[in-house]
């Protein structure tokens, strides 16, 4: 098991956001985390990379245990060397070109030589189809292009796992495809990915596991195929009916 997550809990004031979430991830898994807005899925993902501090929870990452509540700065830095995070609103460094966005973590973070970092960065940007926009600043790129640069930035550090927090939710509909194509390619190459998403097509056809959350609890989790074809919970069936109907509505003229 590459990643075992146990009993993650989080409250914001009186509001329980995560009520004990557990998840096991194998190498090469693509886990889609689904659920209605406010279900806690983004908070869950952020807790795993310590962007939020959980109130309780444990995680074993490649054999190394981490306490999600008490982890030290050093623990967190060690963990983040093996992970990468892709944000809903990209969060590219606005004062850096596409190329510098990708190299900064390698040079200033990992202490790599500039030439070596640029070589890696160019390869990563090529992979996401942004190899011809090395000198563009984020403000000169479309949302889809920015998100692809963000994915290149995530790839450049050769992470063991990439967390995606609603990577296509901020995009215009016609730009979603280019990002999903890149993510599908990564999945096919065996990258381990945890993806909070509303894209049912992606969850169904690319991910191999699904975690369905609501109100801070897991409603249902398991292999994608089973989840979509034989959902066990009535709530899951209801959710699938609503979202699938809505997405069908969107594709019809």
């Amino acid at each position, binding site marked *: 098991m590459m990643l075992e997550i146990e009993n993650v809990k989080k409250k914001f004031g009186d509001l329980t956001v995560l009520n004990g979430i557990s998840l096991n991830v194998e190498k090469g898994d693509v886990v889609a985390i689904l659920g209605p807005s406010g279900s806690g899925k983004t908070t869950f993902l952020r807790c795993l990379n310590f962007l939020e501090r959980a109130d309780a929870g444990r995680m074993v990452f490649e054999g190394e245990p981490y306490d999600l509540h008490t982890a030290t700065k050093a623990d967190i830095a060690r963990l983040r060397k093996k992970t990468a995070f892709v*944000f809903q609103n990209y969060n590219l460094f606005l004062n850096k070109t596409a190329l510098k966005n990708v190299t900064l973590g390698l040079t200033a*973070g990992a202490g790599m030589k500039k030439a070596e970092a640029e070589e890696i960065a160019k390869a990563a940007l090529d992979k996401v189809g942004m190899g011809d926009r090395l000198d563009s600043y984020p*403000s000169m790129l479309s949302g889809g292009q920015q998100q692809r640069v963000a994915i290149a930035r995530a790839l450049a550090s050769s992470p063991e796992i990439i967390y995606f927090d609603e990577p296509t939710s901020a995009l215009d509909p016609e730009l979603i495809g280019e990002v999903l194509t890149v993510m599908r390619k990564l999945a096919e190459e065996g990258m381990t990915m945890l993806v909070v998403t509303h894209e049912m097509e992606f969850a169904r056809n690319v991910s191999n596991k699904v975690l369905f959350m609501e109100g801070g609890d897991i409603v249902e989790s398991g292999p994608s195929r089973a989840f979509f074809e034989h959902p066990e919970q009535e709530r899951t069936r209801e959710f699938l009916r609503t979202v699938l109907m809505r997405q069908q509505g969107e594709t019809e003229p």
Partner: protein
Amino acid sequence: MNERLWNILVDSFPKLLSYGIRVTVPLTILSFSLALVVSLLVALIQYGQVKGLRQVCRFYIWVVRGTPLLVQLYLVFYGLPSVGIVMDAFPAAVVVLGFNEGAYMAETIRGALESVSRGQLEAGYCVGLTFPKIMWHVVLPQAFRTAFPAMSNSMISMLKETSMAATITVMEMFRQAQVINGRVYESLGLYGEVALIYLAFCTFLTWLQHRGEKRLSTYGGNRT
């Protein structure tokens, strides 16, 4: 214009200009440098929420912004010697002007830092950067661009405020005008002349500001 006044103005101009360049300009540059260091530290302490020091910074800003510059100059130059802290007039002026403008600029810089999206910081952490490195490579450059016009304002104010140093015996451009005037009694002519030299200096700074803003706009206009 009568010939006497004309001659006074022509004679005094090189003197005034020379005091402007030799005293007013260095006083501005030194005080502004001190203000820059102080304000950056104070802003970073507040932005990084450094425990304990944060209250000290709020106190400093509260006191400095709440008292007149003239009173601060008098306190430091005439007041502090009675508790054994004696400074020459010029360094005293640098300290007071620097810490005075530092308090205003600290708020400017803090506001600019806070206007940088929190997501920039999070993205920095996620690619393995430490807080100081994120500040240096990402947040400060962006904040600087936002703060630049207001900081230019501070510098222009400071250039003019150096004239207050005349009150604590610093022989700078305005004090020199007072000295010459004491001999020839041509207040309108001499103070008008010194005003024009200040105006020329400030015009140069304004021109620098425009150039600076142009250079800083290289990474595109849209910010989300």
